[in-house]
């Protein structure tokens, strides 16, 4: 069984985004970019399933600019076997990404597609669910545990009240939550080896997918800034403030 692992190149999670003064978006010039953290967890999970003998081959795929090759090389260095870049300089919305992934999956025929539950740039949390819908497959979202056995996968999900477990027939779509695993760092020898692994470049047009955005972003602004308040000297002063506010 193959695993398809979509990965997205996003602003590094340690970088504080700056909104452009003209309201057109967030300034990404000269900003450190990395693999979306949830996608790293997805790559790691696929590798662990391969190490456990549940998966034979891992194909990483990214939809994005030429530089997303770096993100794919990271996935290859971690342990993916091959990669596909669907190259475009346009912003591609989750619905269009899902359509592209469906077309890629039609060629790869994966038993599992493992994706991050959301990308930390647009925070949409949609692509995996949309892909599942388009492929008419079951979805195990926000996974904190994934067990593949025979013709099904059991997914423990992080839900509002705690944890929930569902059993899905394969093929299936899984989206990762934070505590599924801790992604490994690629070793230097593996980074060198990754340079020789196959990386194919395609375009959305190759798959016949229209990526015209459905949403028009008319403005991007800074959120209201919260002003720092006062510091109190000791617990007594804090208690007095709380009591003045009617708390306790």
């Amino acid at each position, binding site marked *: 069984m193959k695993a398809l692992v979509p990965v997205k190149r996003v602003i590094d999670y340690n970088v504080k985004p700056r909104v452009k003064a003209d309201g057109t978006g967030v300034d990404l010039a000269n900003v450190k970019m990395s693999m979306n953290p949830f996608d790293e967890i997805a790559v790691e999970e696929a590798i662990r399933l391969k190490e456990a003998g549940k998966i034979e081959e891992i194909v990483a795929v990214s939809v994005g600019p030429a530089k997303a090759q770096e993100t794919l090389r990271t996935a290859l260095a971690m342990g993916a076997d091959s990669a596909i870049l669907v190259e475009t300089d346009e912003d591609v919305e989750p619905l269009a990404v899902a359509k592209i992934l469906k077309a890629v999956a039609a060629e790869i025929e994966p038993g599992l597609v493992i994706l991050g539950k959301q990308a*930390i740039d647009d925070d949409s949390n949609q692509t995996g669910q949309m892909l599942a819908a388009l492929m008419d497959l079951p*979805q195990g979202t926000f996974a904190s545990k994934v067990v593949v056995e025979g013709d099904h996968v059991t997914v423990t999900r992080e839900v509002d009240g705690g944890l929930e*477990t569902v059993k899905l027939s394969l093929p299936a779509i899984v989206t990762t939550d934070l505590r599924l695993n801790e992604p490994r760092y690629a070793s230097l020898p593996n980074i060198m080896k990754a340079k020789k692994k196959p990386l194919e470049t395609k375009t959305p047009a190759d798959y016949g997918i229209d990526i015209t955005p459905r949403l028009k*972003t008319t*403005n991007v602004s800074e959120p209201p800034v919260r002003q720092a308040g006062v510091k109190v000297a000791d617990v007594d002063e804090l208690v007095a403030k709380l009591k003045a506010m009617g708390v306790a």
Partner: protein
Amino acid sequence: MKTLVWVEHDNSNMADATLAAVTAASKLGEVHLLVAGSGCRAVAEQAAGIAGVGKVHLADDAVYANALAENVAPLVVGLMADHDAFVCPATTNGKNIAPRVAALLDVMQISDILSVEGEKTFTRPIYAGNAIATVESTDAKLVITVRGTAFDKAEPTGGSAAIEDVASTGDAGKSSFVGAEIAESERPELTSAKIIVSGGRALKDSETFEQVIMPLADKLGAGVGASRAAVDAGYVPNDYQVGQTGKIVAPEVYIAIGISGAIQHLAGMKDSKTIIAINKDEDAPIFQVADIGLVADLYKAVPELTEKL
């Protein structure tokens, strides 16, 4: 515009998150509700009482008992023939189901809206709330999830909507529910708590978290939250997490104890009315958003605070 709002519930009681979604939907037009579950007529009756609701669609069948997206999505898609917008609270159920519905309708979903600016125009947070985007949909229908803290709750009583039974679309045969570990707690639920006491990595371990945070929370009748670091370290379960990918909260009072204030955490609580921070590091970023800060050793300050309140 006719909207269809997903009612969040546990087959017995409607969850408060529904009420904020109703408020958001009412800004778009007529509000219809969908109660999908098993043995959930009581929920439909509660939902019918929400002020301003036009109709409650009740799909009562065992296949909907656990809100499996594979079974629920076809039901919603069927109902969307007569509705213009599907509106979900941004609960884990809403986030699981809405995109599946959106893709089946060939609609680009608008996630986690903060405001309704026009018939098809909304604001939503991006980059962990470090930027707010205004987006306009060009799709024929809308699929939306609603951030609960951004909208007032609709009045839960005063309405008398008709309840209409909807035929089950059956079992998609792709998924089944195995079980759940849902934490039983006497404390208020995080997303509706008026006061939240939240602990971070500085709490060291689960016993210390319990000994330091819980007595203060109990004294204040507060909900208990945690930073991602505290959850990752196993001090408390995942459902305590407040932040970009955890719960978004906006209580009257948020007390952050031993939390440094990473942007991912701030994304989940910075709309709280009053933020109080206790941290021994006076340079911790949490103090930049706190209304009241106390630079102190939490092991001394928190027990003292608990005693003196």
